[in-house]
């Protein structure tokens, strides 16, 4: 954690600007924090998340790199071994795979392989998810590939406040963190409390209380789940919504406590359901809450196919209606 918090009070920011501010504040607090990636310097990144930072911190701390994801991640590992805290940016979710070997076979294992002699504090920022009307490889949700890899932590914010604190805590953390940014929520505004220094990025949060059923989700689908819960009020249904926030470690106790109250669980994400985080949550809750469950855990997610072309993406990504259909199925038991 940084020594000082340069900000005070609260401020309303977009999620993208909350990330910019977090990076700025952590870089200001620690000389060894630096960011690198494609076009992040003068341009400020394709989503302008790093806009203005190079002017403040110079080109050796906000580094425009040659185009090579393995190079970006691999050199970040080397810099971390030297004692730096690099924050590499991957331009889009589907572009992470050329750097996947370095993340999963190297970054994740370095602390263990060196018998704890080295910490590799690398925070990999990856904009992810769909519904931005883009082309192939620009709308994927590969988070389960990283949560399946021991040694990595995986987090994703759904609000500007969480985005700010989650990134600061990730950068300051001794473990490597994959920080997934819900790109379709970059322009969503919210209040950031700069004094929430005790924020724990590895816990889930109940973002709406309810009694009849729990929806657990994260990142871009949190507003969808909240809207579904609101719509369900008309049918007399009281739905609790959990924002998981951290996908590894997963805060199972928070979900468990909710299920003990509601007895029903729907897990939702944009990623394909097969082999996804939802499957793990369903299994964990079945193991732990079998006698509390009134219905099977239902997963709502992407289909088992590559992310479709953008003009039909609404059929792929879960929306309010697919969540409500799952709610009805659960309540029918």
């Amino acid at each position, binding site marked *: 954690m940084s020594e000082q918090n340069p900000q005070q009070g609260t401020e309303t920011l977009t999620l993208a600007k909350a990330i910019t501010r977090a990076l700025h504040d952590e870089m200001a607090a620690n000389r060894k924090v630096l960011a690198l990636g494609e076009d992040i310097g003068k341009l400020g990144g394709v989503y302008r998340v790093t806009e203005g930072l190079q002017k403040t911190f110079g080109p050796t701390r906000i580094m425009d790199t040659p185009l090579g994801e393995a190079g970006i991640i691999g050199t970040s590992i080397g810099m971390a071994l030297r004692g730096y805290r690099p924050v590499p940016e991957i331009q889009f979710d589907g572009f992470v795979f050329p750097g996947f070997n370095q993340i999963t076979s190297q970054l994740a294992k370095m602390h263990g392989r*060196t*018998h704890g002699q080295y910490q590799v504090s690398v925070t990999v920022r990856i904009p992810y998810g769909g519904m931005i009307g883009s082309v192939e490889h620009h709308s994927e949700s590969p988070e389960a590939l990283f949560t399946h890899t021991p040694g990595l932590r995986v987090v994703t914010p759904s609000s500007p406040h969480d985005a700010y604190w989650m990134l600061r805590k990730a950068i300051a953390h001794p473990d490597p963190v994959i920080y997934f940014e819900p790109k379709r929520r970059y322009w969503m505004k919210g209040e950031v409390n700069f004094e929430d220094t005790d924020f724990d990025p590895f816990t889930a949060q109940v973002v709406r209380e309810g009694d009849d059923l729990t929806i657990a989700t994260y990142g871009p689908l949190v507003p969808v789940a909240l809207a579904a819960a609101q719509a369900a009020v008309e049918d007399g249904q009281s739905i609790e919504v959990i924002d998981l926030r951290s996908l590894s470690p997963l805060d199972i106790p928070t979900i468990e406590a909710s299920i003990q109250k509601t007895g029903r669980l729907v897990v939702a994400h944009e990623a394909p359901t097969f082999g996804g985080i939802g499957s793990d949550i369903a299994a964990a809750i079945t193991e732990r809450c079998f006698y509390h469950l009134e219905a099977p855990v239902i997963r709502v997610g992407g289909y088992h196919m590559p992310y479709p072309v953008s003009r039909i993406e609404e059929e792929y990504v879960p929306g309010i209606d697919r969540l409500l259909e799952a709610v009805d199925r659960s309540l029918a038991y």
Partner: protein
Amino acid sequence: MSQTQNPTNPWGTPERIQLMNEAGETTPHTSFSAYADELTGEDLKDMYRTMALTRRFCDEMTSLQRQGQLALWVPSRGQEAAQVASARALAANDYIFPSYRDHGVLLERGITPEEITPLFRGSGTLGWDAKKHNVHSYTLVLAAQVLHATGYAMGLNLDAEIEAETGEAQTGQGQATDPTQDPDKPAVAVYCGDGSTTEGDVHESMVFAASYNAPVLFFVQNNHWAISVPFSVQSRVPISTRAAGYGFEGLRVDGNDVLAVYAATRYAMDKIRTGEGPVLIEAETYRLGPHTTADDPTKYRPEDHGATYEPLDPMLRLEAYLRSTGQADDAFFDDIAAYTKEQVKSVRSYVLASEPETFETYLDRAYAAPHQQVEDDRSFYRAYNDGFEED
């Protein structure tokens, strides 16, 4: 398209640096002899000792693997000159990223044979103190370490920037050497083989190193085989030629010639330390044994390879030189034989007694800070084992 078996290179090939021929006879070189002249007779004998230990240790580890005492062994036979002489040319505070066959580099750096064994015994993943020796862990995924080295070297440049701003020398995560006492500006050396240079990570390493003028030496041991694939299939041109494409110097050196390897590495490190950015050295050597103990080179190698390459053996060459110049006699070589025999005896007993740390130690190390899923697994592991105790 057919594979090019007899490559030609119209763009020019770096001179092959050789200071000592196969008979152990030396020839002066206008650019490189001065570096080799730094080596005294004692230095050369000391290097011979380390090379001999590397070989004897390697043979012993091969035997231990055949006896079922090791999971795997990666022989370095034939590459002792390339490894020991290059490591000898580095400064103590230069940080080394080895591949998985660089036992001579490690021994030259003061790491003991015993400390090399846990990875291959299956009882640990890193047996030495990386920070004390400035030598990172072995890397088994090909070429991954080449990018780490480049990043580490970029970090050294960032260190220099911070030092210029604050006046404080940087130590990163901690090194055994005190940066305020460094006689030489630290740099990085990374080792890989000819097979590794096919990997995209090497390409990206060289692009990044050039882009950021990183103080890194890429030391490629071309042992002519990527398991079963000969160099003639791997590359149309000597690997040293490729450096020009990235915009830095590539040197080609007889990798079985200790004098040439030492001189080329000293030259390269001097250049790197002055801030001229990376250098690539291709040390042309030969893998006399298999790729690993899981390999069987009789299935793919020409039968006459022994007759062709064994006379080029770096050990024989240095022995011939030391004898012909009167620096060493039978007594010296007898002493070396006794020394290496004694050393490997202790390695054998160490390996046979070597056991892994507890299972939970590996759970502890998966993360630097507590992680809920690891703690859940730990609870299960304990409960499961406690159940047996109750029975």
